[in-house]
């Protein structure tokens, strides 16, 4: 499998949200605006890449029997570091994403990539795999955020392009499910038609 394929697989064919439906909790929770979706996506991508790199480096010294607890400790450590850094240098993002940053630690997409790929592949490929899955995740969250923000408030990344209030339900929780459902359907239709 070529390097390009490893990278793109996470974006299209194995897109964490639209295809694998992994990590839906932060997806639905943080995408009330495009900016929040993007922020959450980038934060998760950061963890995906780092966790994949660290674990593929140490995959040979971690005994198979204790690999799960070892991975958990590594991932939670990385997430905590990320949380501290965001709190210190990006307080605005911290107040917007709040509780969802620590929850990256239990996002199943991180664990899925670590267990399925990084524990069996070399560092470069693992990093690419994490980057791909992270980009796919970020793309899905940003798209969902853009759609919800546009329909719900008439804004695009905070810029108001239509006067008035918008369809409020799309900013609320039910709207997240509705918008995500339609996006999944469209994504699969397009992916099938173009057979990527």
């Amino acid at each position, binding site marked *: 499998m070529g390097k390009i394929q490893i990278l793109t697989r996470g974006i299209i064919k194995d897109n964490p949200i639209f295809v694998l439906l992994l990590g839906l909790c932060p997806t639905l929770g943080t995408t*009330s605006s495009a900016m929040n979706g993007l922020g959450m996506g980038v934060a998760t991508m950061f963890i995906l890449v780092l966790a994949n790199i660290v674990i593929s480096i*140490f995959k040979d*010294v*971690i*005994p198979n*029997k*204790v690999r799960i*607890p*070892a991975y958990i*400790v*590594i991932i*939670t*450590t990385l997430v*905590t*570091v990320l949380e*501290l*850094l965001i*709190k*210190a*240098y990006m*307080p605005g993002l911290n107040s917007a994403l709040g509780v969802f940053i620590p929850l990256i630690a239990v996002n199943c997409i991180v664990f899925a990539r670590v267990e399925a790929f990084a524990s069996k592949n070399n560092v470069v490929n693992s990093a690419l795999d994490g980057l791909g899955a992270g980009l796919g995740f970020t793309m899905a969250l940003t798209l969902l955020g853009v759609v919800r923000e546009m329909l*719900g*408030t008439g804004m695009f990344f905070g810029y108001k392009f239509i006067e008035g*209030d*918008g369809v*409020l339900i799309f*900013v*609320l929780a039910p709207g997240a499910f509705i918008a995500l459902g339609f996006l999944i359907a469209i994504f699969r239709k397009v992916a099938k038609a173009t057979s990527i």
Partner: protein
Amino acid sequence: MILCLGVIGLVSAVGLTLIYNMTKGTIAAANLARTTGALANVMPPFDNNPMEGAVEMELDGIATRVFTGRMDGRTTGFAVETSTRLGYSGIIRMLVGFTPEGEVHNIEVLEQSETPGLGDKILHPDNVLVVSFRGRNPVDMQMAVVKDGGEVDAITASTVTSRAYIDAVDRAHRAFVAVSTGAVALPSVMTGATAHTAEAETTAGIDAMAFVAAVLPVHNVVSTHDLMLNSERMVVHTAQQNGVTVGYAVQTESDEGWSGVIRLMVGFLPDGTIYDIAVMEQNETPGYGDVITRPDNALAKSLRGRNAHEVQFGLRGGGGGTAAPTDVSRTRGREGGREREGREGGHRRITLADAVAGDVDGITGSTVTSVAYVDAVERAYKAFAAMKHLE
């Protein structure tokens, strides 16, 4: 295997410690910058650090902080950080700025989780609620939304959030009044103090002022008097607004609660009407007796607004007389004043038979607490009556 896990854990712990220490200062600075930024936004200009010497108190069971802004040593304004639990979802934490005269300068919401698109409009710097308050003194306002007969414009389709907002502003205002007038009243609180150090009395005094503000109508001067009631010292605060006495707040306590002392502040209007009751200190069972800290508990509800002269102090059906007394190591001090003996004998138990029947609704499942509460209010009433008599 264990070694490997141990090493991973150790390395993680060391790494986290390093990062934590590295970012600790920056995080604190970022938080401080946010708070001072918010302070500068809601208060008239100041050149001191209002974070220093902030007065902390608890109003209606909600932690409240009052910051004082000064310029060239002159007080230029106040900011009150408080919150409300009445919002649509979760706590709303706000910062309300006042001029020294009591006008609302500006308001900023620090934390909220109201409905996006509806209630979260309170975050907008010029929402209708802020505009309603800005430049006005809450003393001159009907503090309620128009729908409830007040004069504050609510956010459309967010009445619950708007009510909560007003609740927080009202609390902030009471805290502001407490601090701005407390400075006047502090010295007199200290007269007659014996056991405490001056410093402790000062904080106690400020604390007490907050409770005085909580249980009485708006006032700008508080004078404090000690009086002896059945050989116990009672503290009565007389509140005046522009020279007219608007009410009396009596500090009272009962050590007959389920666990420890219950301290109350009871506010009376000059005609004897119980205006409001606030719990200053209690240790009752969480979920049962500690219900007394809620502003709308059955006891407060059944006492508030009634004329104390007409209240039968005791629980409705409280006597009953059916339960056999299990431990009557004391007599109830209703007739002969409070008696101190027998108090030291460990945990006492008040029996239902002990409780005198009256017409106050108790809290279900918390008879002991309720009896103590009513006892404390009764003592406050006696002190109030004595005070009126002295005048």
